[in-house]
């Protein structure tokens, strides 16, 4: 029997991290031991970084501010953008740091309790890092879709209950 490609396991876990090895084995037609070994291997090699939950914080009543900060950087000798990116990454309020193409060099996603906190981060922490020549801050206003999950109210199954 032809084995499913390993990425089928990743796709299943990416959709629902709580899917058990037993269920994954059934879904893919592989043995449970095989699946366990594959997952352990993915974890060991850092392909699976972490298992997390997607939470609609707004619905949970938690007020959080998300900001996207585009940063212009003067690349440093030997390390290019990596040195600055590494320093920014170490702040716990920073969710993501990406090197991007276009008008800016780095894009930062940060989470804060209010707008003032974002302001303080930019003015006091970010702009003091050597090599940063400019910042452009955007705030998230509303989420429509995140990680493949639409945030609009789910639509009902509109199919007839019985159909040929």
């Amino acid at each position: 029997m032809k084995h499913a490609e390993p990425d089928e396991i990743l796709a299943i876990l990416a959709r629902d991290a709580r899917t058990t090895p037993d269920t994954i084995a059934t879904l893919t037609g592989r043995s449970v031991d095989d699946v366990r070994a594959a997952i352990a291997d993915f974890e060991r090699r850092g392909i699976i970084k972490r298992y997390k939950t997607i939470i609609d914080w707004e619905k949970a009543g938690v007020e959080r501010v998300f900001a996207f900060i585009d940063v212009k950087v003067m690349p440093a000798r030997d390390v290019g953008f990596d040195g600055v990116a590494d320093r920014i990454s170490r702040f716990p309020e920073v969710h993501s740091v990406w090197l991007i193409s276009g008008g800016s060099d780095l894009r930062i996603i940060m989470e804060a309790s209010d707008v003032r906190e974002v302001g303080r981060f930019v003015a006091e922490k970010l702009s003091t890092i050597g090599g940063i020549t400019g910042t452009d801050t955007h705030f998230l206003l509303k989420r429509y879709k995140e990680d493949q999950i639409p945030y609009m109210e789910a639509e009902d199954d509109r199919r007839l209950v019985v159909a040929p």
Partner: protein
Amino acid sequence: MSNEATLPPMSRLVEGLAPSGIRRFFDIAAQMPDVISLSVGEPDFVTPWSICEAAYESMKAGHTHYTSNSGTPEFRRAVGNHLKKLYGVSYGEDEIVATIGVSEGLDLAMRTLLDPGDEVIVPEPCFVSYTACISLAGGVPVSVETHAKDGFCVSVEPIERAWTKRTKAILIGFPSNPTGATMPREAMQGIVDFARRKNLYIVSDEIYDRLTYDSVHTCVPSLRGARERTILLNGFSKAYAMTGWRIGYACGPARIIEAMVKVHQYTIMSAPTTAQIAAVEALKSESDVRAMVTEYNQRRRFIVDGLNKIGLDCHMPQGAFYAFPSIERTGLTAEEFAERLLREEHVAVVPGNAFGAGGEGHIRCSYANSLEKIQIALQRMDNFVKKQRNASTRQTAAA
């Protein structure tokens, strides 16, 4: 006295037609808010967005008129290229007609081929419309039963036995609704060879062609000597999640298609323009189809595994999105099982006998549903089967 009583009787043919057994439970199920339906013969995916966009743009641009009877040249060319690429069969623009789903294609094929009394051999269990369409066209359906032990495949011997001098055509639909059976190439070639020997038409409904799992689909007109006598029916409902668009096609030799278009032009005029444009867009991208097939394949393994664990023996279906387990061990008929499962556990399935000979003792469970819902449905079915088992144990003990 009401007017009704004074009216003359309606068509005897239509009066005699049994209503589709599949919808019998519809009213009961519709009353239950928490019903989980495994009785739906359509994808749970919605139409991929790029297809909807193309339709929307075409309407905005004013493409809202009739098309030529056979369908737009773009539609027919796109279908021709698609079949050539997938199966190596070539159809020119005059050998393709756009239909309102396979349903219309089936009706057209029967009305075009049959004279009153002509017989059509149909392997059963099969899609509920086959025998009705044959009868409505004045033909006589001749059933050939298929069995679980053969994976519900059909072989040439029973077809040979069913043949008479009145046999005009063989009507086949693989991958099969309701059994999920597919046909290996050699077995299908045997049937084609028989059709050639007896000079029969073949009507092949291949609506589930893209939903095959461990095997490659056998496209009937691609077989040796098949194309000249085959009407190939297909559509966009299942592989592209476009059931509501009502768009399909029929392909065959120009002479047959020309005759079918004659019927089509008087009854339908042309298939919906927006749907034809959407279908052309659908054929441009295969990535959505592949993603759906991967998902169905996982659910297929999941539901078959679950059914067997419950004790409802189920062969591994090779195509479509149906599992067709045996319920014989419960001692109930298919209708009893389906009705009681619905009333007691709020799970809707279709009794196998709705699909003709050989369907009794089975139920059709569609896995075109989310894994979460399939899991709950299996749990409820497990409860139901256990209750049956306990009841029959008590009866035995009492006796």
